[in-house]
Each structure stands twice: as structure tokens, then as C-alpha cells.
């Protein structure tokens, strides 16, 4: 299966780190208070989807076309 496409909308992301708690190998919070995608396949897809769902600022989009 191809890697999911994981995108963080920097305009709304505030670096709450909620995604880091759910998918620690996929996301990291950088110095500009925005989450960075360090490895879109860093965690099981279910965890990454959970992070998308749980993002309190609705900044994460995960696309799995394949």
C-alpha cells in the first residue's frame, strides 16, 4: 500500500501536539508552533487517522488513495 498523504494546514495548526500524542513517529511540533509531518508512514494508518479526527484545530488531512 502506498504511503498516505498527510498534510498540515499551517494557517490553523497551533502546535497543540495532540497528534504527537497519538502518532508520535508521524508528527512533531516544530519551533513555529506548527506540527510537522516527519514520516507519513511513521505510525499505523489507524493512528494517523485518529490524529486527523482528534486534531482540535482541524488542521490535518490524511489522504489514502490506493
Amino acid at each position: 500500500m502506498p504511503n498516505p498523504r498527510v498534510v498540515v494546514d499551517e494557517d490553523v495548526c497551533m502546535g497543540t501536539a495532540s497528534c504527537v500524542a497519538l502518532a508520535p513517529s508521524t508528527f512533531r511540533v516544530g519551533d513555529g508552533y506548527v506540527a510537522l509531518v516527519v514520516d507519513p508512514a511513521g505510525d499505523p494508518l489507524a493512528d494517523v487517522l485518529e490524529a486527523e479526527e482528534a486534531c482540535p484545530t482541524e488542521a490535518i488531512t490524511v489522504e489514502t488513495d490506493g
Partner: protein
Amino acid sequence: MSESETPIVETDFDHHDPAFVADPHPVLAEIREEHPLIHSGHYGGFWLLSRYEDVTEAAIDWRRFTSSVVGTTVIPPSQPRDYPQLPIELDPPKHTLYRSIVNPIFAKSRVEALRPDLHELAASLLEPIVERGSGDFVAEFATPMSLGTLGMFMGLPVEDQPKWGDWVRRMFEGSINDPEEQKRAGQEFQDYLDGLVAERKQERRDDFISLLLDTEVEGHRLTDLEIRGFGVVMLMAGHETTAGAMSMTAQFLAEEPEIRSRVFAEPESIPSAVNEFLRLFPSIQVFCRNAAEDLELHGAKIKMGEVVALAYAAANRDPREFPEPDACVLERKPNRHVTFGYGHHLCLGANVARLEMAVMLAELAERMPNFELDPDQDPVWRARGDVRGLLALPLLLER
């Protein structure tokens, strides 16, 4: 249960004690370094976590540390209410639903668009202080700057600002020393917001309340109670916090001319400096969760329903996370302080607050780069130690 073996560290910790409010960091450092978990008997009893790792873990773990026991995210508990404050007293997934209503308002681009107006406001507030050569930085700058920004941001009637400031102050202060006064202020504030809601129902405007009126959650329109609740939270959470951060930063800069001239000489250093000042002087020093089940932590047994306070102010100076934690390192990196909390409840207004701080520093640099504490009038601290800040900060300008 072998209760006798539970190593409870019972202390006399009281974050509203005036001596603590004036000088909290030595006390917090001692607690943090000696006992990762303490208990205090004040205000009906509460636990306190102070290390960075513990505080961040608890802040984000709503299954064990819930925010949804109404009234218990602050100590002492707020007035009895049978509805939650939105979105601060909700846990996911409900929290996510309610927070998403207001997320678009807080997008960086929308906040950033306020910048020119904030510069104008800051400049106009500093002008009389500069002309006179002295002034009370809280009454003349921090308070009107914070209220003015919220008014612009939420689209509320500018002329009512002094009233909101007064209600918020009486509600915060009353809750620790005059509950009747707190109730009265709360009622006036509610009536005011209800009045605005009624007006906007007749005629929408491009503002916060109109946006809420047109929002649906789980298939229903927001109720009047929910709309009022959002309004109360925005002003309660956004005003004294930001005014406190600005006043504490100005006090520090008055006392530290070298740091002041370094920041003022390098405008590009302002964002990083703002972050460091926020780390050193968090206006929310303590915020709480409630044990969602019986917990075992650091060898102690916490019972379901007990209050667990998170000492954001202590975590911000934990040497395990921040080298030289008490030093002001303007270019500190990384600087993952918890002044705005951590996780899903992370302050919605963080970008607004950072912008206000940055504008304040830029305008001070331009208009009154040299100032000191007035030797004849001491700064006055607020009565509360959880929402810390100054009530008066008399400054003299050096000419």
C-alpha cells in the same frame, strides 16, 4: 487497601497566598525538585503536579484526567453551575466538536490581519505616558490593550470595554474573597451578553455572536446558554491572562535594562523574545483536571473525583526540559513552554496573545525605550495566583 503505606506528601501549598503571588518561583522549584506530586488541604483539597513530563502527560490524557467535571478546572471551584464552560470544560470527542465552531476565527491569517490596528491602539495608549514621563502601565496600557484587542477580535461594541474589564476583575477576585460580589458581577455580565445575543438575533453583524447564532452542532443550533457561555469564556480566558503577561513582561524589562536594550535593538528577535517572556511569566500558573478514575501516581493513590492541579508555571522552569531554566535566554530553542497549556485544550487565543505581546514590544522600542520602576510606588499584585499579573505598575521614563 493499605492506605497507611500511601506516601502522601501533605503540604500547606496555597497559590493565592500573597507571598506566593509576589514570588512564586522559589516555592515551585522546591516542590518540583523534592516531590513530583504533593497534596494540599486548602480549598477542599487538591493534588499538584509540577514536572514538565507529568504536567504535559496529564494535560493531554483526558481519559484519566478529565476537564469535564463542571467548575473544577480552577481552585477554588467556580460558582455552582449546571452547564459546562465551552470548550474548556469538555473532553474529546465533544470538545473537538465545540472547539471546531470557533477554530476558523483563530486562523493565523485572520489574527495577523489585526496587526496594523493593534499597532495603532498601542501607540495611542503609550502617547500620554510618554508625554507625562510616567504612568501606571496596567491601567493605561495592559488593561485597555487587552480589552481593546478582544473587542476588535470578537467584534464587540468598543464603548463597553471598561464594563467587561470590571466584570471580569470582580468575578476573578470575588471568587476568592467576596463570593457575593462575584455573583453580582457574573449576573451583570450574563445580562449584558444575553442583551447582545437578543440584538444580533434581530440583526446579524460580522461578529462573534452572529457567527455562533448561525452555527449548528450535532444537528442543533447553539442554545442561548451555549452562546453566552462561549462569550463568557472568551473574555474570562482572554483578558486578564494577556494583560497579566504584558504587565509582568514590562516589569521585568523595567528591571533589566540590558535585556531590554537587546530586544529593542533587534526587532527580528521579538518573536523569540515574546516566547521566552511567556515561558518565564506564565499568567496561568495553575490549571486543573479531575481524576476520572482511581489513579496511582508517584506511589500515591488519587481517588476518582479529586482535583489534580497542573502547575504550568513550575513545568516551564523544569531543568529536565529547559537548560538554565531561571535564565532569560532570548533566543532559546527549542522553547516548548506550557504557558498556553498542552494538547487539545491548548489556548485558542495563543496567536492573539503572542501578537499583542509582539506589538507591545515593538511600540515600546519605538516610543519609550527607557523606563524604570517608580521608586516611590511599588507594583501591586492581583489577589489571585492562578491568573497571575499586576494590578498596578507605576513606571518612570528616563529622559
